[in-house]
């Protein structure tokens, strides 16, 4: 029987499907990433196979899986929104008006080393397809408090200020004469 199954599965005449490997869309951007948070999220799934025999329930097999995800969220200043109008240059002073930091998710990756599975011997193990469909839940309820958002935006502003100030001082400006302000100032608010 096993032989029959394996020979059936390994059909030598079957041609493998070729998929195009290089599919990429490139885009010009100008983003100054200044802060990052790593968010940890876990998706747990349990499946119990229950036999109902005339009103009575019998557990005939269970399986469960815990999938831990590492989500990276970064804050950045979009320099595509910065033009000449954002710079006010006076004789001894420069004022830079920057847009507020924006936030984006840059990666959602599974921590394969810490996946936990528990499968009864008579149940089928989790397939790759099942794990893919569970991954869709990783973003569910991804939210944090106002305080945490505030910390991230504040950190993003402080670092953007430092980075731009550093470039301008290297260019020859005196640090005391540089003023950087944001559209919506999280530091002052």
């Amino acid at each position, binding site marked *: 029987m096993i032989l029959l199954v394996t020979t059936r599965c390994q059909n030598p005449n079957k041609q493998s499907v070729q998929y195009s490997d290089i599919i990429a869309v490139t885009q010009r951007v100008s983003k100054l990433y200044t802060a990052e948070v790593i968010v940890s999220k876990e998706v747990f799934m349990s499946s119990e196979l229950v036999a109902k025999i005339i009103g009575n329930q019998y557990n005939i097999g269970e399986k469960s899986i815990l999938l831990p995800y590492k989500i990276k969220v970064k804050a950045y200043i979009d320099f595509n929104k910065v033009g000449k109008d954002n710079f006010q240059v006076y004789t001894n002073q420069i004022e830079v008006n920057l847009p507020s930091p924006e936030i984006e998710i840059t990666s959602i990756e599974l921590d394969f080393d810490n996946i936990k599975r528990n499968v009864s011997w008579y149940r089928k193990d989790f397939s790759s397809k099942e794990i893919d469909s569970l991954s869709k839940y990783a973003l569910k309820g991804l939210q944090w408090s106002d305080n945490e958002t505030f910390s991230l935006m504040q950190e993003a502003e402080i670092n953007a200020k430092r980075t731009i100030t550093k470039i301008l001082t290297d*260019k020859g400006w005196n640090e005391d004469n540089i003023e950087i302000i944001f559209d919506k100032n999280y530091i002052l608010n």
Partner: protein
Amino acid sequence: MENSEQQNTVPAPQFRPPGCGVLLLLIVVVLLTISYFKCEAPVKIENQEIVDVSPTVIKQLQIRKEWCFREIAMEETSEIKGITGSLLKRYYGVMRLGVKLDSINENYVQFYKNEQVLTIQLPKIEVLDDNFIDETKTETLVENAWTKFNNEELKRCFNQAKRKMIENNFTTKNIELAEDQGKTEIKRLVKSSGYSGKIEVEFIK
């Protein structure tokens, strides 16, 4: 004559207890009768599934000093072989090319001024972050029903896709395109800050 003798030698029928088959048949009949009166299937198998998502836990807040000049949205297929079949998956991700501004001590941007030209030196173009895959978009294209892949094998498939993405997209052409954008951006920043002379931007190789 012989036949009549044989018929005479056949033993008289005796009582034999019912076999397993008969017992099973009886049980089935009883179950069906009860279910008929209760109007429901005698044996029903249900799969009770629960999906639970943990609350958001922020692990760490880090400072970044990365200037991204090029984003490359990619998709890549990756195949691994098992004992009785193979697994083919498609991954999606966005790779970001740019400069790490804290990479060369603190002097990440160097300015050299001679009489005519202001030369600005920037660090080399890099892949800004090795984590760029979005697992919520991953698809399994081919999977043999008889072969199951463990965590190690899934990790191998994932890492293979990531390696291919870097090989195919962190190319000389894309590095040059990122450098061009970087030059435009830094010139724009310096000119906006009041400099009107000639500017040259170069990247450390």
